[in-house]
C-alpha cells in the first residue's frame, strides 16, 4: 500500500531530463533517429520503448526526417469554426502535399496540430516556431513565398 507514496515508476532524476534531452536532439538534428533514442535510453537508464513512447506522444517531436520548414495548422474546434479547412486546402494546393507528408524537395513538412493557443486570432498556423494568425487563403501564398 505504500506504493502510492513510495516508489513510483519512472521517477529517478535522470529520467526526468528525458523531455529536455529529446528537445535538444530534435532541435539539433531536426528529428529523433533510432540511434539518438538508443543513446538517450542508455544514458538515462531507460528502456528504448519508454523513450520511443515519449518521442511519439508529443507532436512537436518527430521520429522521421522533416522538411526544412515545418507547417503546423491548428485542427482544433475554434480554428475549425473559423474555416481552417479552407486554409488546410489552400496549403495542400500550394505545396502539393497532404498533412503528414513532406515535399519531395525537402522544403516543407505539413502537419495538423492541436490547439496552439491563439484561438482569439483563429484560424492559426505555425511555420517552424513562428505563429501566423487570422489566416486567409490570400495570406497563405505570401507567407509560403517567404519560406521558399
Amino acid at each position, binding site marked *: 500500500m505504500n506504493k502510492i507514496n513510495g516508489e513510483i*515508476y519512472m521517477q529517478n532524476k535522470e529520467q526526468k531530463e528525458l523531455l529536455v534531452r529529446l528537445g535538444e536532439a530534435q532541435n539539433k538534428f531536426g528529428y529523433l533517429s533510432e540511434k539518438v533514442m538508443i543513446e538517450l535510453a542508455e544514458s538515462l537508464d531507460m528502456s528504448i520503448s519508454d523513450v520511443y*513512447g515519449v518521442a511519439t506522444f508529443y507532436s512537436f517531436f518527430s521520429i522521421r526526417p522533416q522538411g526544412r520548414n515545418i507547417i503546423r495548422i491548428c485542427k482544433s474546434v475554434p480554428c475549425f469554426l473559423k474555416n481552417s479547412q479552407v486554409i488546410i486546402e489552400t496549403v495542400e494546393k500550394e505545396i502539393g502535399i497532404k498533412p503528414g507528408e513532406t515535399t519531395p524537395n525537402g522544403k516543407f513538412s505539413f502537419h495538423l496540430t492541436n490547439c496552439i493557443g491563439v484561438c482569439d486570432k483563429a484560424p492559426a498556423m505555425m511555420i517552424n516556431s513562428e505563429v501566423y494568425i487570422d489566416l486567409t487563403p490570400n495570406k497563405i501564398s505570401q507567407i509560403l513565398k517567404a519560406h521558399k
Partner: protein
Amino acid sequence: MEQIALTINDRQLSASSGMTILEVAKENSIDIPALCYRQELSPIGACRICVVEVERSETLVGSCHTPIAQGMVIHTHSKKVLQVRKTMVELLLASHCGNCFMCDKANICELRSIATDLEVGLPRFQVKKRYYPVEDASPFIVRDLTKCILCRRCVSACNEIKKEKVFGIAYRGFDSKVVVDFDQPIDKDVCRDCDVCISFCPTGALSKHGEIGEEKKGEPLIISG
C-alpha cells in the same frame, strides 16, 4: 499507524492511513470491480472501472489509487457509479475487436467477466476498432494487440515483478499502443521461461504458443442487459 474513520456504503469503518479506498473495501468484503488494478502492481488508474462516489468530491474517483482520508463518505455501488462503470466497460468493448467466440480466452477473460457482471449488453457506440497483426515471432509469447485494452498491466508486471522493461506505451490518443522497442514485433531473449505478463493480461492479447483450447473449458460468460 494512524487510524482513519470513514464510511463506505453507510458502514462506519476504520483503517490505517495510507491505504486506498479499494484496499479498505476489499478488507471489508465490499467488491469493487477493477481491470487495470492488481494487488501486486502499483495502481495507475488507467481503466476507470473501479470508480466510486466520494461525497463532496466534484467527480467520481478511482478507488485503486485514491488514499483514504478522515471522515470520507464513500458509495461504491450508487446509481451514478454503476452507470459510469457500465459506460466505461461499454466503451472498452466498443473499441475491442469483439470476436469473443473465436477467442481462446473468452470464458476466462476479465473484460468479458466484468461486462457480464455489470450486464452492459451490446455497446451503443460505433467506433473504429484497432486491428493489428498477431505477433508470433517469439517462441515464448504470442501477442495479439487487436485484443489489447491498454490496461498496462503487462507493462507494470514486466517492470515491477520481472524487473525488465520489455514494454512501453507509445503514440497518442486512439493510436496509443503497447510497444516493444521501436514498435517492433515482440521477440526478446529475456522472455525465455517467463510468463509474467501473460498471467497478468486480462484479455487474450498475450498468450503462450499452442495452448489453444485450454481456456475454452470455463463456464460460458453471457453478457445480458
